[in-house]
């Protein structure tokens, strides 16, 4: 078995590999498929938006709009503040659509098997840690921006830094909160990357193991990966909203503007724990 693996030359790389260079910039295989995914996403979204604008609906347009409406309602429910929910929603929704389309693009036949100078030509964008890490940074930075807008710059710092003499428990909690922000960043990026990378490896290994029967066996795993892709995109979407909700939430009754957030702030840690 091990010999057959060796003989099959199974190409697995943790990092995205450069296919060619433009100047000093390396164009990686994940970037190529990512560009394809983003172009597909833009084409779909502009097509649907055009149809919605003209009032010409079909099942696909209805499906996209239904998804959009459902996710918007989810965002409003999670955040609690409708105005803030609509501010953060474009980032969260774009994360969902981008992760979904690029994840699904990585299941297309040819991904991993087509090579260029011994390097796979295509690789799923979520299987590139640069992409997932960039998304996680944007999510955390966005939540911090909204937190600063809500609490003020020093108010936001006050969430993490407290006087240990006056409030030792609060100070300890602040340190934990700060560590939590970094752990969220790492967890967000590694969760998506791990799932996508494992999915690609799984498909590759199944293809190698099943050999000629791969055309029969692989579709089942592809459907499974489609499902995982949706789940991962949804989890990223929800966590983006939950982290924003936690960042803008106030503890106590000193901020009367955020009375509607008290409910969500009480609920979201539980939801965040469940998702994490």
């Amino acid at each position, binding site marked *: 078995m091990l010999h057959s693996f060796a003989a099959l030359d199974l190409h697995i790389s943790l990092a995205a590999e450069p296919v060619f260079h433009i100047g000093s910039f390396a164009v990686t295989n994940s970037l190529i498929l990512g560009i394809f995914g983003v172009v597909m996403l833009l084409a779909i979204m502009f097509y649907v938006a055009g149809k919605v604008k003209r009032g010409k609906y079909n099942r696909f347009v209805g499906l996209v*709009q239904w998804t959009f409406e459902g996710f918007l309602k989810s965002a409003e429910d999670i955040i609690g503040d409708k105005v803030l929910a609509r501010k953060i929603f474009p980032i969260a929704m774009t994360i969902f659509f981008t992760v979904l389309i690029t994840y699904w693009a990585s299941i297309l036949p040819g991904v991993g098997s087509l090579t260029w100078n011994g390097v796979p030509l295509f690789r799923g964008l979520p299987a590139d840690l640069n992409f997932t890490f960039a998304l996680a940074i944007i999510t955390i930075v966005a939540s911090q921006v909204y937190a600063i807008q809500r609490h003020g710059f020093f108010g936001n710092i006050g969430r993490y830094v407290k006087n240990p003499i006056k409030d030792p428990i609060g100070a300890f909690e602040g340190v934990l909160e700060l560590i939590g922000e970094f752990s969220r960043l790492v967890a967000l990026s590694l969760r998506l990357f791990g799932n996508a990378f494992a999915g690609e490896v799984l498909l590759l290994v199944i293809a190698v193991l099943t050999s000629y029967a791969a055309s029969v066996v692989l579709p089942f795993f592809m459907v499974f990966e489609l499902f995982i892709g949706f789940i991962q995109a949804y989890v990223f979407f929800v966590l983006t909203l939950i982290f924003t909700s936690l960042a803008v939430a106030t503890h106590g009754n000193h901020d009367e503007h955020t009375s509607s957030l008290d409910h969500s702030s009480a609920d979201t840690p539980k939801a965040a724990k469940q998702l994490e």
Partner: protein
Amino acid sequence: MNVLLTQFASTEAGASDGGIFGALGIDLTMLIVQGIAFLILVWVLGKFVYPVFLKSVDERQAKIEEGSKAAAAAEKKASEAQEEVAKLLSEARKEAGFIVATAKEEANAAVEAADAKAKARAEKIVANATETIEKEVIAAKKALHNETIDLVAQATEKVLGHVVTDKVDEKVIAAAIKEVN
């Protein structure tokens, strides 16, 4: 397997070159490029696509709310109408009851009046009949008396052979007195 091990070995080599970030394939240039590309995507979709969807969602929501309000108003109206109908029905029932009671009373009064009238008429008829019968009886008695007198006269005439006149009568009376004596 050898290839796999070689791959992992090369990864570790990468790790020794660029630390853990290098091992995981994190490249600062690529990270920034992908981050900026994503933000541009968010801006494009947020500028040209999502407003269309949001407008559509808001319009639909407004329509639903409008429909909901209209339904609530219609329900309220229906409820009010139902209450009014119930009230009208109650009033109508009361009125109908009153009318029926009045009609019954009137009918009873009419029946009683008719009864009394009929009784009076019957009594009158009976009285008239009695009077007529009495008159007829008297007349019959009178006629019978007269007839009896005539018969007696005729019988006497037949017995005496003469028409009973005052003279004859006197003679008969005288003969009878004589005989008695």
